[in-house]
C-alpha cells in the first residue's frame, strides 16, 4: 500500500546495512535532474536510527549471506511508512529486512526546502563478520634483547613504549625476554635502555589481533661517549672514517695468533709494516704520527718490539677503533691516525680467566667479582720465542732476525659506586728487551745490541650517567716510559757506541661532559691535558737512529763520529675541546673545536760547554690553522682553535655518505730537540685532513665502504740542507708532505659463524724535506695494499680461516756505485732518492682452531700458519761489502704457531 503523496518525488537511495555493525555511511544515488517547475528535493532523508535485522539463525550458521532491496516510504516526519520488497533474497531474509526497516527513523527529506514524504530504495545486506572474542588480557608485543656481537641475552634492559606515557615499560628477564599486553593498535615508539647499553629507540606497528614478536640487537655502551644512537642504523660514527672491530672477531683473524690488537694491521688504510717492526703506517703517515689511546690515555706502543704481540692483554680489550684520519676534536697530538682501545668491563660475578701458551709466549688472566660492586682482574704475559729459536735454529739466525724478549702485565679494578656510576683503576705495564752479540774474526767488526723499552700507565677512570641523561667522565693518569738503545760496533774500550736513552714521566687528565641540549642535539666538552717530562741522553753518530727521508742502505756501518748530548724537555699540552652532535633528519653533523697550546720548556739551547753555562728556554706553540693568503684580518684565525667536522648523510636505510676534515697538530719529538743532534727550537707540526666516502649496507651484516682522502702536512722536521748547519740547527722545520688515496672495504660481520672482509687501499704519500726540493716518495709509501680475510665456524668446535695480503714494496734509494774509504770499508754512491721499490709482498696465512666445551671450562687449540706457500718475500735490499752485487733479505718462510688456551 502506497500512501498518496501530495508531491510524489521519485528519489532513489540505496542504503546498505549489515547485520553486525552500525550502518555504514549511506550512499545516495544522485537524484535525476528535475524538470523546470517540478518540485526539487533539496534535502535527502537521513537515517538516524538503525535497527539491525535478525539474521535467520540457520542461514547464519550455514554462512549464507544475502541482500534484500527494499522500497521504503518516509513520511514528512521521518517515520517509516510502507516497506516493500523490491528484490528479495529469500522469504526469511526478506521478512527480517522488512521488519527491521519498519523500525528505522529518518530525518525527513525536504522538497523545495520543506519537509516532505518520499520513497527510497534501500538495500539491506546480511553479512557475516568474525567476532572478536575478548578472552582477557593478551600479549600482543613481545621479543628478546640480545647483545649485538655476542648474541647473548641481555637482562635488565628497560623496554619502554614512550608514546603511551610514563610507566608503560618492562624489563627483560635473564633470557632477555620482554612482553607487553594489550598494546593499543597503531605505531608506538619503543625505547631500550640500560646503564651499560647505548640507549636506542625504534618504532613498532601493532595491528589489531596480531602479536608482534621482535628481536633487538643492542650494543654495549662506550662509556662517556655514546649516550644515544639511532636505531636500525650503524652507531653514529664519531669519526669521518672509522673501522671498529670487536674482540670476538679480531681474535680469530688468521696470522694474528689470537692477538686481538694485531688485527689493526689488516684494516683499511693501514700499510704493511716492515718485518719485525710492528709499526703502524696509516694513510701514508709515519708510525710516530699515529696515536694509540687506551681508554683515552696515550700509550707509546701498541705492539712489542718486533710486532709479535700487542702490549695489552687481548682479554682486557673490548674493542679497537681505527680512524686513519679526520677524527673528532676529543683527540689530538698526532698528524696521522688514531687507534682507540676500549677496555672491557669485568664479569659481574664469579671467577673467570684463562691460561694460554704457544711457541711465542705464555699469558694468563684472572678476574673475580670480589663483592657485588667490586671486581678485579690481573693479567700477564711472558715471551720465550728467543729461547725457542736458539734451541731449534742455527746461531746466526739472530744476526738477521733479532728476537726480542718481552713481557707485559695488567691489573684492573672496577668499583660500582651506585647505579650508573663507576670508578675503574687500571695499571698497564710493558717491557721489551733485546740482547745480542755478534762476534767477528776482526774484533773491530764485532757488533752488539742492547735495547730496553718499557712503559707503565696507571689510569683511573670515573664515569657517571646523570639522571638527566648526561654523562661525565674524568680520567687522570700517570706513567713512565723508558727506552734505551745501545748499538756497539767494535770491541773494547774504543768500541763505538750508538745509543739513545729517553726517560719520560707522563701525567694526564682527560675529562668530558656530555649532554643532550635539545632534540637531536648533543653537546660535549672537555679537557685533554697532558704533561710529559723527558730526560734524554744520546751518543753516537748523527745519522743514527735514522729518520724518515734519510738516504740509507741496509747493513751499512755507521760513520765513526761520536757526538754526545744530554737534554731535558717538558711538554705541557692543555687542550680544551668541544664537540656537538646535531641530528637533523637524515643529516648528522659532528662539528668540533680543539685548542691545543703546548708549553715547551727545555734545556739547553746550545751544546753543553765548559765555557758557558747552560741556558734553558720556554715557549708556547700552537698547531695554527693553515690559511691562504696573508691578510691581516685572517691572522687571528690562524691562532684560533683547530676546527674538526664530520658530516653523515643517511640517504637511505642502506646508503650513507660521510665527509670529514680538520686541522691537527703534533708536538715535537723530544729526540729532535737535542742541541747537538737536532734543534731545540723545533715546534709543532701541522696537518689538514680531508676525507669523504660512502657506505652501503648490502645486507644487514654486509657493508661496502669507500673513502677518499687527502692530507697535507706542514712544518715537518727534516735534516738541514746545509753540510755545515749552524750550531743547534742540524734539523729544520721546512718539510711538507701530502698523501692522498682511496680505500675500500667490503665487510661481512659475524653471521652464522662467518665473518671476513676485503680491503684495498690505493695511496700515494710524498714529502719535500725543503720547499725548494722536488716531491719524493715517502719512505713508507705503499701504492697498493690489499687484504682478504675470512673465518668460518664449521661446527663441532672446528673453525678455520685464511688471510691473504698484497702490498707494493716500500721505496728505496738505489746504489749506483761505491768507493773505498779509509782502506777498510766501502761506502755506497746513491742514485735518485727513493726511486726504486722493494718487490711486492704477498702472503697467505691460515688458521685452524678446535674448541672443546668442558664442564666448567673451554679448551681451545689453534694452529696459526703464516706464509703457507713459503713465499720468499723480499724485506730489504742487501749488498755485498763493495756494493757491486745486490740481493734481498727475505722474510720469514712458513711459520706455524701452535697454541692452546684454557678458558674458565
Amino acid at each position, binding site marked *: 500500500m502506497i500512501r498518496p503523496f501530495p508531491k510524489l518525488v521519485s528519489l532513489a537511495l540505496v542504503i546498505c546495512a549489515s547485520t553486525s555493525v552500525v550502518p555504514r555511511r549511506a550512499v545516495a544515488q544522485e537524484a535525476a535532474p528535475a524538470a523546470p517547475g517540478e518540485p526539487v528535493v533539496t534535502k535527502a532523508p537521513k537515517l538516524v536510527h538503525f535497527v539491525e535485522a535478525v539474521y535467520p539463525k540457520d542461514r547464519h550458521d550455514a554462512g549464507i549471506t544475502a541482500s534484500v532491496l527494499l522500497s521504503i516510504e518516509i513520511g514528512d516526519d521521518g517515520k517509516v511508512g510502507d516497506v516493500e520488497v523490491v528484490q528479495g533474497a529469500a522469504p526469511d531474509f526478506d521478512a527480517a529486512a522488512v521488519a527491521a526497516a519498519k523500525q528505522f527513523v529518518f530525518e525527513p527529506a525536504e522538497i523545495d526546502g520543506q519537509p516532505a514524504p518520499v520513497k527510497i530504495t534501500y538495500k539491506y545486506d546480511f553479512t557475516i563478520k568474525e567476532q572478536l572474542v575478548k578472552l582477557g588480557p593478551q600479549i600482543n608485543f613481545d621479543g628478546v634483547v640480545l647483545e649485538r656481537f655476542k648474541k647473548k641475552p641481555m637482562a635488565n634492559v628497560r623496554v619502554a613504549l614512550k608514546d603511551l606515557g610514563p610507566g608503560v615499560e618492562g624489563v627483560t628477564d635473564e633470557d632477555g625476554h620482554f612482553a607487553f599486553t594489550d598494546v593499543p593498535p597503531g605505531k608506538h615508539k619503543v625505547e631500550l635502555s640500560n646503564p651499560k647499553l647505548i640507549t636506542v629507540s625504534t618504532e613498532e606497528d601493532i595491528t589489531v589481533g596480531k602479536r608482534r614478536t621482535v628481536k633487538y640487537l643492542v650494543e654495549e655502551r662506550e662509556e662517556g661517549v655514546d649516550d644515544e644512537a639511532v636505531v636500525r642504523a650503524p652507531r653514529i660514527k664519531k669519526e669521518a672514517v672509522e673501522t671498529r672491530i670487536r674482540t670476538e672477531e679480531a681474535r680469530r683473524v688468521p696470522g694474528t695468533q689470537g692477538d686481538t690488537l694485531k688485527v689493526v694491521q689488516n684494516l683499511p688504510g693501514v700499510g704493511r709494516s716492515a718485518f719485525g717492526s710492528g709499526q703502524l703506517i696509516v694513510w701514508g703517515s709515519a708510525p710516530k704520527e699515529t696515536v694509540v689511546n687506551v681508554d683515552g690515555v696515550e700509550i707509546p706502543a701498541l705492539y712489542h718490539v718486533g710486532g709479535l704481540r700487542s702490549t695489552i692483554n687481548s682479554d682486557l680489550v673490548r674493542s679497537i677503533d681505527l680512524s686513519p684520519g679526520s677524527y673528532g676534536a676529543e683527540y689530538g697530538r698526532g698528524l696521522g691516525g688514531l687507534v682507540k682501545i676500549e677496555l672491557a668491563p669485568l664479569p659481574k660475578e664469579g671467577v673467570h680467566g684463562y691460561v694460554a701458551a704457544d711457541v711465542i709466549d705464555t699469558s694468563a688472566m684472572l678476574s673475580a667479582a670480589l663483592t657485588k660492586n667490586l671486581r678485579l682482574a690481573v693479567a700477564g704475559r711472558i715471551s720465550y720465542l728467543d729461547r725457542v*729459536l736458539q734451541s*731449534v*735454529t742455527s746461531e746466526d739466525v739472530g*744476526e*738477521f*732476525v733479532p728476537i726480542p724478549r718481552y713481557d707485559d702485565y695488567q691489573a684492573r679494578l672496577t668499583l660500582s659506586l651506585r647505579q650508573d656510576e663507576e670508578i675503574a683503576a687500571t695499571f698497564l705495564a710493558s717491557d721489551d728487551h733485546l740482547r745480542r752479540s755478534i762476534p*767477528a*774474526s*776482526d*774484533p*773491530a*767488526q764485532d757488533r752488539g745490541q742492547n735495547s730496553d723499552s718499557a712503559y707503565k700507565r696507571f689510569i683511573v677512570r670515573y664515569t657517571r650517567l646523570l639522571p638527566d641523561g648526561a654523562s661525565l667522565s674524568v680520567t687522570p693518569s700517570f706513567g713512565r716510559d723508558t727506552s734505551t738503545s745501545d748499538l756497539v760496533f767494535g*770491541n*773494547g*774500550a*774504543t768500541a*763505538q757506541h750508538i745509543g739513545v736513552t729517553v726517560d719520560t714521566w707522563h701525567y694526564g687528565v682527560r675529562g668530558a661532559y656530555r649532554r643532550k641540549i635539545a632534540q637531536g642535539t648533543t653537546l660535549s666538552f672537555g679537557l685533554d691535558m697532558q704533561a710529559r717530562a723527558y730526560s734524554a741522553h744520546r*751518543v753516537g*753518530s*748523527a*745519522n743514527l737512529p735514522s729518520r724518515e727521508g734519510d*738516504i*740509507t*742502505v741496509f747493513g*751499512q756501518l755507521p*760513520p765513526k763520529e*761520536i757526538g*754526545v748530548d744530554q737534554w731535558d724537555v717538558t711538554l705541557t699540552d692543555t687542550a680544551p675541546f668541544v664537540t656537538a652532535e646535531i641530528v637533523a633528519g637524515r643529516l648528522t653533523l659532528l662539528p668540533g673545536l680543539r685548542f691545543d697550546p703546548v708549553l715547551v720548556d727545555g734545556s739547553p739551547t746550545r751544546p753543553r760547554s765548559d765555557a758557558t753555562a747552560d741556558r734553558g728556554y720556554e715557549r708556547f706553540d700552537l698547531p695554527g690553522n693553515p690559511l691562504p693568503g696573508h691578510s691581516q684580518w685572517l691572522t687571528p684565525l690562524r691562532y684560533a682553535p683547530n676546527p674538526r667536522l664530520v658530516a653523515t648523510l643517511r640517504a637511505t636505510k642502506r646508503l650513507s655518505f660521510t665527509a670529514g676534515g680538520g686541522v691537527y697538530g703534533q708536538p715535537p719529538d723530544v729526540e729532535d730537540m737535542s742541541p747537538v743532534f737536532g734543534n731545540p727550537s723545533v715546534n709543532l707540526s701541522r696537518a689538514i685532513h680531508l676525507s669523504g666516502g660512502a657506505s652501503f649496507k648490502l645486507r644487514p651484516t654486509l657493508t661496502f665502504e669507500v673513502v677518499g682522502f687527502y692530507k697535507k702536512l706542514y712544518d715537518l722536521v727534516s*735534516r*738541514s740542507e*746545509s*753540510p755545515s*748547519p*749552524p*750550531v743547534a*740547527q*742540524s734539523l729544520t722545520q721546512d718539510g711538507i708532505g701530502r698523501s692522498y688515496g682511496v680505500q675500500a672495504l667490503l665487510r661481512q660481520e659475524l653471521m652464522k659463524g662467518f665473518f671476513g672482509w676485503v680491503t684495498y687501499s690505493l695511496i700515494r704519500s710524498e714529502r719535500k724535506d725543503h720547499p725548494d726540493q722536488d716531491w719524493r716518495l715517502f719512505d713508507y709509501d705503499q701504492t697498493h695494499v690489499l687484504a682478504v680475510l675470512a673465518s668460518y665456524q664449521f661446527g663441532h668446535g672446528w673453525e678455520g680461516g685464511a688471510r691473504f695480503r698484497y702490498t707494493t714494496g716500500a721505496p728505496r734509494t738505489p746504489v749506483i756505485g761505491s*768507493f*773505498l*774509504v*779509509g*782502506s*777498510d770499508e*766501502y761506502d755506497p*754512491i*746513491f742514485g735518485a732518492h727513493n726511486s726504486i721499490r722493494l718487490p711486492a709482498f704477498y702472503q697467505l696465512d691460515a688458521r685452524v682452531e678446535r674448541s672443546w666445551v668442558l664442564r666448567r671450562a673451554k679448551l681451545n687449540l689453534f694452529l696459526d700458519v703464516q706464509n703457507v706457500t713459503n713465499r720468499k718475500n723480499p724485506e730489504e735490499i*742487501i749488498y*755485498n*761489502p763493495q756494493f*757491486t*752485487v745486490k*740481493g734481498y*733479505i*727475505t*722474510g*720469514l*718462510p712458513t*711459520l*706455524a704457531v*701452535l697454541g692452546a688456551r684454557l678458558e674458565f
Partner: protein
Amino acid sequence: MRRSLNLALWAAPLVLAAACKPDLGAPVSVVEGTDPRILAVRGVPAEAPAGTPVTYDILAANVDGRIANPAVAWAECNQRKPPADGNAVGAACLDETLVPVDMTGPTYMAPILSDACKLFGPQPSVDKNNVAIRPSDPDVTGGFYAPIRAELTVGGATSIAFALERITCTLANVPADAAAQFNMLVTPNQNPILTSLTLDPDGSPSALYVRDPKGAAPPPPTTPVTWVGSGATFDLEMAWSADSPESFPVWNVQTLTLDMHREAMSASWYVTAGEFQHDRTGRAETETDLTTRNQWTAPVVTASTNVHLWIVLRDSRGGIDFAETTIEVRP
C-alpha cells in the same frame, strides 16, 4: 745456515726458518775480474797538523796482480760531510766540479789544507752569515780526518777510494788542564809496520813476506815466493812491529775524562784465487799479540797458477801498511 736450519725445522713443533743471507757473490777478499780495484790508500805520515805535506800512495790490483804505476787522478776534498750523512765522506767529494784535481800519478804529495781543523775538525767556524756552524764530531779515538780522493781508471773501468788523513787538531771544548795533559801525552799517529807473513806457521813455515821494521819495505816479488798444492788449506800468520800498536790519549766525551788507549789492529786479506776463512781479522785493544791469523784454501787447479795475495794492516787511528806476495798453486 740454511742446512742447519732445515734440520731444525723437522725436529721442532715450530716450523720456523729465519731470514737467510742471500748469495752476494765472491767475498770481498777475492780480487776477481780485470777491472781495477783499489785496496788501500796510504798517507805518510799517518797523522799531521794542517799545512804539513803528506805523501799518498795506493795499492791497486786486479785478477792479474798488482797494477804497477797506476795513473791515479788525485784530488783533495774541501767539502764538509753533512753531520747525518751515513758515508764517511760527503757526496760533494765525489762531484768533480767541487774537487780540484791537481795531478795524476801513482803517488801524490800535498800539504793538508790549512783550514782542515775547521773544515773537518773541532775548531769553531762560522758560515757566510757569520753564524757559528756545528763542528765535526771526533771518532772514538778522538780523531778528525781530511779526505783525499784517488780515482783509478783502467780500460774504461774506474775505482774510487778515499784516504782519510788524520789531522792533528787542538782539543776543543775541554777544560784547560785536560787540554794541557792531552798535549803532553799525545803523539801523532804513525803508520803500523807489517813485518812478516808466514804460510803454515805451525807446520812447515814458509815466509811469504819479511820486512825489517827499521828498514824499507821490500819490493813486490816478481816470481812466486813458494808453492802449494791445489785445493790445500793453510794457516797464514801476519805479524807487525812491536811499536805499531801505539798508545794514545782520548778525551772521553761521555765521561769527560782523559783516557789512555792502545791501538787495535785490523787486517784485511785479499787474494786473486782460493778462499780465505775470514775477510778480516785483527786484535782488540786489550790483546797484546802482535800477530793475527787466517786460513786460506788454495784454488783447485789443473795447471800451475800464480795466485797474488795482499794484506792491509790498519791501526784504529787510521794508520796503514800493506804488503803483497805471490804463491804458485800446483795441481
